[in-house]
């Protein structure tokens, strides 16, 4: 099974599809690849100006600019993985109708484009961390694991959405609304520690996104970050976001596997 998934043909194809995606992304733009760095940087500048300079939101942590940036970068990663994958199957309809390739490769290639953006963005984070003299702890080694967690969550959703989109084009609109809700459910722009009711904090930390974002801030920026262990005092409830993640991953991949048999005729 594993051997089949990572067969030479699949690896070659995956690499070439990612390369193509990346080449095509900035096709016809003057600045080209620079945009993958410039775009998050500019977006971050806006948020920085609004939330830290004008609104003076107090996150109760040091290096609040970097703290804010880490959240935004991870959110963008999740967004690119999910919203960016919705039309991946339909968009590659020509391949699916005329060639026998494992369908999952198309979704994975689209998600790997998001990973590439994330890597570039992480470089931006690193630069900001150096400029802000953030003291790096050994805990930063957890960061890749948090990315893996987010990736599994994102790819589970991406599998589900891309398969559902083949038949129901409403999916993209519905997902847009859900994303908006998730955006506010995740403590990206507001200090979660300052929320009044513990139940709201518990709700927020049931989402794998919130848990991942806060943990990432904890391991990279400051240990003063409010994390899941503060929202849930006992051990078992802390597994809620991971349980949700597993459920989403299993449901997404199973649904995709079932539907992928008829992609060629449904598109």
């Amino acid at each position, binding site marked *: 099974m594993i051997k089949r998934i990572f067969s030479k043909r699949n690896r070659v194809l995956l690499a*070439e599809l990612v390369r193509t995606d990346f080449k095509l992304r900035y096709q016809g733009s003057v600045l080209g690849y620079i945009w993958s760095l410039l775009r998050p940087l500019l977006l971050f500048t806006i948020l920085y100006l609004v939330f830290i300079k004008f609104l003076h939101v107090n996150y109760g942590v040091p290096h609040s600019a970097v703290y804010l940036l880490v959240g935004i970068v991870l959110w963008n990663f999740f967004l690119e993985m999910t919203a960016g994958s919705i039309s991946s199957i339909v968009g590659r309809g020509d391949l699916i109708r005329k060639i026998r390739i494992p369908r999952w490769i198309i979704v994975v290639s689209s998600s790997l484009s998001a990973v590439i953006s994330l890597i570039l963005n992480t470089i931006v984070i690193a630069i900001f961390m150096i400029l802000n003299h953030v003291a790096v702890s050994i805990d930063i080694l957890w960061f890749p694991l948090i990315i893996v967690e987010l990736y599994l969550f994102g790819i589970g959703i991406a599998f589900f959405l891309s398969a559902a989109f083949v*038949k*129901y084009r409403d999916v993209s609109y519905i997902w847009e609304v859900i994303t908006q809700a998730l955006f506010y459910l995740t403590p990206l722009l507001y200090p979660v520690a300052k929320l009044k009711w513990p139940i709201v904090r518990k709700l927020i930390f049931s989402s794998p996104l919130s848990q991942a974002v806060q943990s990432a801030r904890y391991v990279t920026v400051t240990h003063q970050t409010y994390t899941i262990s503060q929202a849930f005092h006992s051990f078992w409830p802390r597994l809620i976001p991971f349980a949700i993640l597993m459920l989403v991953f299993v449901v997404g991949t199973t649904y995709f596997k079932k539907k992928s048999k008829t992609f060629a005729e449904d598109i």
Partner: protein
Amino acid sequence: MDNDVAIKVEGLSKAFKLPHEKNSSVKSAVVNFYKRNKSYDMQKALKNISFEVNKGDFFGIVGRNGSGKSTLLKLLAGIYSPTQGSIKIEGKLTPFIELGVGFSPELSGRDNVYLNGSLLGFNRKEMSAMYHDIVRFSELDRFMDQKLKNYSSGMQVRLAFSIAIRAQSDILLLDEVLAVGDAAFQQKCYDYFEDLKLAKKTVVFVSHDMGAVQRFCNKAIYINRGKMTHIGAPLDIADVYQEENMQSIIEQSSEGSKEAHKDDNIAVSIVKQDNEQHIIKFRIDYGSKFETYVGFSLIKDGATFAELNSLDLKVSDKKGALEYILDTQLLNPGVYEISATLIKSENKQSLATTASRLKFNLPGFDKTRGGAIHLENKLSRVA
């Protein structure tokens, strides 16, 4: 499974769900779910197909448009999954059925070569090794750094073909590859086919080009409306194809003219056939309210090889009969047909065509099958 069987298809059926109104919104899905009505038709594209392709076979799939040929090929390629039945494949199969699948118009020719190569399972190193051969074969040296969208369609096909022939597989699936490209390109295709035959590759080949089917295939099937009606030698299958094509053309034209002009009719009949004397006498009856003349053609194997008309006779009656005697020494043994058309003198519009063509058989040993004209006395060797 037998050792020399490459593809074994058993009881294969494929049905497509055809929604009445496309169910592509959640709302209609919900509504239909509660209504519990099936808002789709099942279209049976293939019904109970069984055949075997041996290793080294050049296997033709022939049929008219919409008969299910391409569906069958897609099932063989694993692009569709069967509704019923099974397909067993022994050996490595080419994954594509068309040329230039996955080409990206925004990428350069060079990038597309690598991309297309990856679909065949070649990594960049392997592609680099064969890159120059591919470019040379495609004769597109000067264009490799241009975007594919600036290529002409002929150039795209040339590039795609040059990559496709690199595929290292035991079984090739080819759908209408000859439908595109100029004569020079077709020649390259033919050469490639010859190479495939020499290399004893198994090829499944869908085409409308009966010439190519007869030239390359050693076995063929005929598919009509999703059913496999004939299997056998390519020559016979080509005959079936020509026959069915002709039949439908005549059906269409006679239906059309019957509705338009009920008064106009034409019929051909044999008056006398004498095989000893080598003559055949036939009669054409016609009637119309217009000034007309009659045109008729002699057909063998679906192809018209002689056309005549009654214009030279200067008979333009509205009703009448014509009788002809044909010297059959001119013709080889075989089945011939006569089709006649009633033509309006004024504007040369066809008013009626014989609904069913008159057939006659010239008995004899079938040694020069495929040709109509008996050349024995007219052809002499001079060197």
